[in-house]
């Protein structure tokens, strides 16, 4: 990429796969379990985190030299909280139904370990451009996993994708349902997300054996 130097593009691309915040660092599992029963919610959650993490990273990076290190966690929390409130209000204004499904989990972005983790580990020690790219990369890495999990859970659990009945109608028995197919109720409940996530981690590690930790 001509737009970004090699080092910078690594900041964006690394968290997508080999240093993924969910599958490798195992952070942010809570929200991955809670809101991935529907693809739509997963996408909105991913976008919200993208906004909060990239903007927050920039803000913290700009402030990094004037934040007294003793109160840095509080400052970080104020920044996240401000951004999360913006996201929450925008959702309530323009996508009220969706904000109800996401309910408390938008607010809980504040406690998402990925965000505090990036602030602490990256934004406090790097310039705003790098911090921005790092935020984008990590949020996308988070989002990708959310969308993959959401895709399988919604498809197998409800037979829909973004609310569209891709497998036919279970009530009037069209499509796959006419030959006796039924939705898998297990996929709707949160433990299924853990298992789908586990399978993703399994696939990823068996493709790239360097990721397997020493036992």
């Amino acid at each position, binding site marked *: 990429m001509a737009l970004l130097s090699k080092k910078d593009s690594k900041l964006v691309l690394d968290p997508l796969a080999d240093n993924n915040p969910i599958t490798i660092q195992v952070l942010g599992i809570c929200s991955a379990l809670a809101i991935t029963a529907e693809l739509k919610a997963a996408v909105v959650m991913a976008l919200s985190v993208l906004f909060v993490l990239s903007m927050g990273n920039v803000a913290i990076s700009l402030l990094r030299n004037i934040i007294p290190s003793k109160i840095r966690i509080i400052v970080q929390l104020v920044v996240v909280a401000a951004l999360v409130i913006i996201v929450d209000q925008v959702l309530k204004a323009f996508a009220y139904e969706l904000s109800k499904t996401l309910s408390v989990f938008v607010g809980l972005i504040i406690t998402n370990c990925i965000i505090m983790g990036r602030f602490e580990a990256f934004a406090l020690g790097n310039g705003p451009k790098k911090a921005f790219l790092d935020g984008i990369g990590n949020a996308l890495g988070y989002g990708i996993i959310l969308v993959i999990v959401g895709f399988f859970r919604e498809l197998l659990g409800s037979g829909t994708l973004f609310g569209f009945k891709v497998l036919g109608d279970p009530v009037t028995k069209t499509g796959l349902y006419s030959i*006796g*197919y*039924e939705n*898998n*109720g*297990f996929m709707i409940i949160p433990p299924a997300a853990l298992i789908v996530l*586990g399978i993703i981690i399994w696939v990823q590690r068996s493709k790239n054996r360097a990721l397997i930790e020493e036992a």
Partner: protein
Amino acid sequence: MKEKLHQLKQKYEGKKMAPAFNALHTFLYTPNETTHSGAHVRGADDLKRTMNTVILALVPCLIFGMFNAGYQQYSAINGFPENFSLFDDFLTWSNFLVGLTTILPLVIVSYGIGLGIEFLFAVIKGHEVEEGYLVTGMLVPLIIPVDTPLWMLAIAVAFGVIIGKEVFGGTGMNILNPALTIRAFLFFAYPTWMSGDKVWVHGAKAGLTQAGSTDAISGETVLGALAQGSSHLSFSVSDMFYGFIPGSVGETSKILILLGALFLIFSKIASWRIIVSGVLGSLAMGLIFNGIVDAGWLPTYSKFYTLMSFPYWQHLLVGGLAFGIVFMATDPVTGSQTNRGKWIYGFLIGFMSVMIRVFNPGYPEGVFLAILLMNVFAPTIDHYVVRGNIKKRLRRLKTATIYPQASDEVDSLKTETA
């Protein structure tokens, strides 16, 4: 034949498919290779013998299940026979045929998919196929309703074998009982096929009707009826004991389960401690519930009233409690290993089975959930039993008079156990 297979084995040595071939080979014959050096004792009770013994104990339940499937269907259509006779009403060819055509496919799918996955993993990982699935594959058709669609079973078996067993490292490494994992998956994924009054009789879900009327047939398990609050049961205690009641395929006949249990105990395959303590646990919980009802603490309009006032010993006669305690809780891999641990483990399984059974709002049965829960806790129980033993011995050491270098021994023992 045997010689030919040995020759074939030489040919396949080191090839990719070798484990798959060896599995079939050793299934029929003893391998032609033996250890050459040193003294070895060859035990006759290898893994394969163990597995086959359990299967042998399960076969009566399976055969009975086939007859019962036909009997339940016939009775649902024509009404239960007035003067029940074992040979005219139950052990008939037509009953057996209904059972055979519905249950045999379940067995075939269970073994086909499960063993297929085992072979696949053996070939990929390059280790030998283990016999662990032989029992699981037999248990699975026995703990599900007769009308479970085959594709659901196939998915559940794949899930149970891969997620429940292979990811942990295969036979002997699994935390959860694979057969129960399969059942739990079915239960949570397709609850309408695993509970209610339409799944226990073959054809009820498909809309079979009663003779001479347009009413659809149905059949409720005893527990299902109790959970609905009907205290008047259509089955007598002896029906429950002999197993002429609706239920999962192999769980109904308590007398055959009892025979299986005795067989397993005397062949020393299953732990009698787990079985006895499991029975005690369920009786204890049942007694507590009965006591609460007798003391008048529970109003009669409570939705738990009928299940809680159900005589404590009859809990063992209905549902899958007896089957679970005898054939699932005694799984040597997922259960506790220490003797005292087995008592605790079994007791809690029985205790919690009855508790979940009574309080589960969606489904009046809890044996599989209780056993899975205790599977998770089994290593913890063992851990504390072992710690307890160590502590006791250390205490004994303190008061004991030890003749050579007492102080050294205490220290080295302490570092060993710290």
